[in-house]
């Protein structure tokens, strides 16, 4: 099974560890992610004002390029994303066009294209659940992640706005939990799994991000988590990177490593942990993984 893949601006650069583990795991699970031939940045944020039609042009171009790939012989008619922001922006763009056809007409006019809002956008987790099946993944697990207490961190953009994204229940999501149970992890429910990491304010207010990150990491630690998993390079960065300054400002802070869910998937499927680039993390997950006897 070949699925067109849209990497977006971060996956082939600062989030290589996310991309590589996802692509290798895909091969082991029976599908190939083929990067779409021609693509641009999705804009990394969905425009929230009515008059910002320009903000829809970027993602529309991506959706058009992806559709070309989807229509090739032997390819699935869907594009898969890893970054939760890319996923959010692309799905919301289609939704915006379905809600307001005149927006689609305007963007088509601007781009001199004829997009029909018909590119199917999926997140990698949805592909695992719906196309591969958690039961199949369970059979392929070589090393159950027994005893590893994992807190699934959804953040904002996989879940909100629920009507437009349609990924999972925004108040009681299960896709991450079920995935982690499949790998044998002990799933830790915690109060801040869909609270913001501070997002793009990383660029102008590090102190605001630190506050957000502290709240998330602290809640995960209080619930007994040993490790946090995310599906977003910016969440990973904010939650991990800020732990140094959090420690300096909060004497009660507990350090918790933050990894991509595909890194745990890779670990469970028996991939070599040396390929995971874990040393790029501020809080190194390796000692924990070793202590649990998983490497």
């Amino acid at each position, binding site marked *: 099974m070949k699925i067109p893949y849209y990497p977006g601006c971060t996956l082939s650069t600062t989030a290589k560890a996310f991309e590589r583990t996802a692509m290798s795991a895909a091969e082991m699970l029976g599908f190939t992610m083929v990067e779409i031939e021609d693509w641009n940045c999705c804009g990394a944020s969905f425009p929230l004002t009515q008059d910002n039609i320009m903000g829809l042009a970027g993602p529309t171009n991506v959706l058009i390029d992806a559709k070309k790939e989807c229509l090739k012989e032997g390819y699935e008619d869907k594009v898969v994303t890893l970054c939760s922001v890319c996923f959010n922006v692309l799905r919301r763009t289609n939704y915006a066009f379905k809600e307001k056809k005149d927006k689609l007409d305007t963007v088509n006019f601007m781009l001199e294209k004829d997009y029909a809002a018909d590119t199917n956008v999926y997140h990698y987790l949805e592909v695992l659940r719906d196309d591969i099946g958690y039961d199949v993944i369970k059979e392929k697990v070589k090393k159950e992640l027994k005893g590893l207490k994992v807190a699934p961190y959804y953040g*904002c953009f996989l879940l909100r706005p629920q009507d437009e994204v349609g990924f999972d229940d925004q108040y009681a999501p299960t896709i991450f939990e079920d995935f982690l149970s499949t790998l044998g992890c002990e799933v830790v429910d915690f109060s801040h799994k869909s609270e913001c990491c501070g997002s793009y304010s990383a660029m102008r207010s590090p102190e605001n991000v630190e506050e957000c990150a502290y709240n998330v990491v602290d809640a995960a630690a209080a619930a007994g988590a040993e490790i946090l998993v995310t599906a977003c390079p910016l969440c990973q960065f904010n939650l991990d990177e800020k732990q140094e300054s959090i420690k300096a400002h909060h004497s009660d802070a507990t350090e918790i490593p933050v990894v991509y869910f595909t890194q745990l998937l890779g670990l469970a499927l028996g991939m070599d942990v040396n390929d995971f680039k874990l040393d790029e993390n501020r809080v190194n997950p390796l000692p924990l993984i070793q202590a649990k006897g998983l490497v």
Partner: protein
Amino acid sequence: MHAHDSHEVEVDEFIENITKMSGEDFSLCYQCGKCTAGCPMADVMDFPPTLVMRYMQMGLSEELKKATSRWDCVGCLVCGSRCPKFCNPAKVMESLRLDDIKSGRRQEEIEALPVNFLKKAPQQAIVSGFRKYVP
């Protein structure tokens, strides 16, 4: 905005513009405070979402122009997801911030951005940050 316009006309223009940009019907908000209760940035905001909605209802544009909370908004969309009246304060925050930038009231200077941070940050932070804060 013309210097000779009366104060009233100016007030209307600002409120009208924000109403149009956000697409919000401010009369729906009944001030329950759920948006602010869920807002991760409410503690540091001068005008948390509930208050922004109220000032928009009342047409208090001069006060709104001076408020800075939209620069603390992280766009998490919690406010809209919790609102029992289906309002979306995040859209109002974004409209106010873009109006700050367009009208020259405030913007982020590229020179002031932390270079070391930009070197190691995910591209995604830089792209969305530029979209949100820089003209």
